């Protein structure tokens, strides 16, 4: 993942119309925005759409954004707000008996066990569900991006920047302890 300084350079280049810089910015931030939208409980198509809408809105505001931290924070806040509105709307649409594609999804649904070919994955997700919401959010985002930028993640989940590293270690240690104590993990 990119450092703040690198994101800043990309942002400046994107603002000057450099499409390659914009491409890099999208690649760097999409995984985080995706988790923010999914973490709000949106179905996959809705989440993909909300991420797009946030980028489209960003294009209109690009000239107002001064610093790279601001671009990340801005996108994350926008994604969260758009996701919330989308949720409200799909709830509102349900009672009229229409055939709306979106039903109200579970918040942050666990993966479907039937899709897991690997027994260890099943064991892992059973224990994963017992972690706190904060641990689940954090581990899912850390798992998605290489060398995650803690500033971006702190922004995404409203955690203090300095707590990300320790929280990640604590959450991972907790999951490890549960797994290594589970005979099903050891034997599969």
């Amino acid at each position, binding site marked *: 993942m990119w450092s703040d300084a690198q994101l800043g350079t990309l942002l400046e280049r994107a603002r000057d119309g450099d499409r390659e810089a914009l491409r890099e910015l*999208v690649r760097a931030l999409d995984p985080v925005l995706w988790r923010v939208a999914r973490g709000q409980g949106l179905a996959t198509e809705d989440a*993909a759409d909300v991420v*797009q809408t946030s980028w489209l809105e960003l294009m*209109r505001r690009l000239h107002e954004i001064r610093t790279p931290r601001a671009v990340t924070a801005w996108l994350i806040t926008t994604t969260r707000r758009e996701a919330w509105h989308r949720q409200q709307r799909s709830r509102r649409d349900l009672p009229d008996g229409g055939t709306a594609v979106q039903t109200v999804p579970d918040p942050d649904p666990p993966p479907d066990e039937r899709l897991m070919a690997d027994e*260890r*994955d099943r064991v892992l997700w059973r224990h994963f569900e017992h972690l706190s919401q904060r641990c689940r959010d954090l581990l899912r985002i850390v798992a998605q991006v290489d060398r995650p930028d803690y500033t971006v993640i702190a922004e995404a989940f409203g955690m203090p920047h300095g707590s990300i590293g320790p929280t990640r270690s604590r959450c991972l240690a907790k999951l490890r302890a549960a797994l290594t104590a589970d005979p099903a993990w050891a034997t599969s």
Partner: protein
Amino acid sequence: MTDPLDDLDRDILRRIGRYDPPPADLDERVLFALALTDLEDEVARLAEEVAPAARAGEQARTITFDAASRTVMITVLERPDGLVRLDGWLAPGAALSVELRLPSPAPPRTVTADETGRFVLDEVPHGLAQLVIHGTPRVVTPSLLL
């Protein structure tokens, strides 16, 4: 500040990351939608998508986009030849130019809505597309997967 990860940590994270990654084409969809957009554009949000209803053997779905200045509604009809037909409606109605952007090298398709805001785009291929309504302000939708 970061504890080094050992093999088990890495295995755990790899297993978590395998589920629910972003769609493989998410970046592509975002970049396609952004390719044209600029400061002056108004963004239309997906307001509602109604599932395909088998209607006398036809597959049709209706998608509504809301922008501050205008609502765009399209019905996507599957044609027997594997292409689709879009029946669209702008509200408030106006005889505006409606452009359907397709991924390059396909040229965009442009039609003009009638006074009531109705327009038809026929023989459109499946895949990514974006609607651009050339009013004041110009209205753009997110990428659509037809």
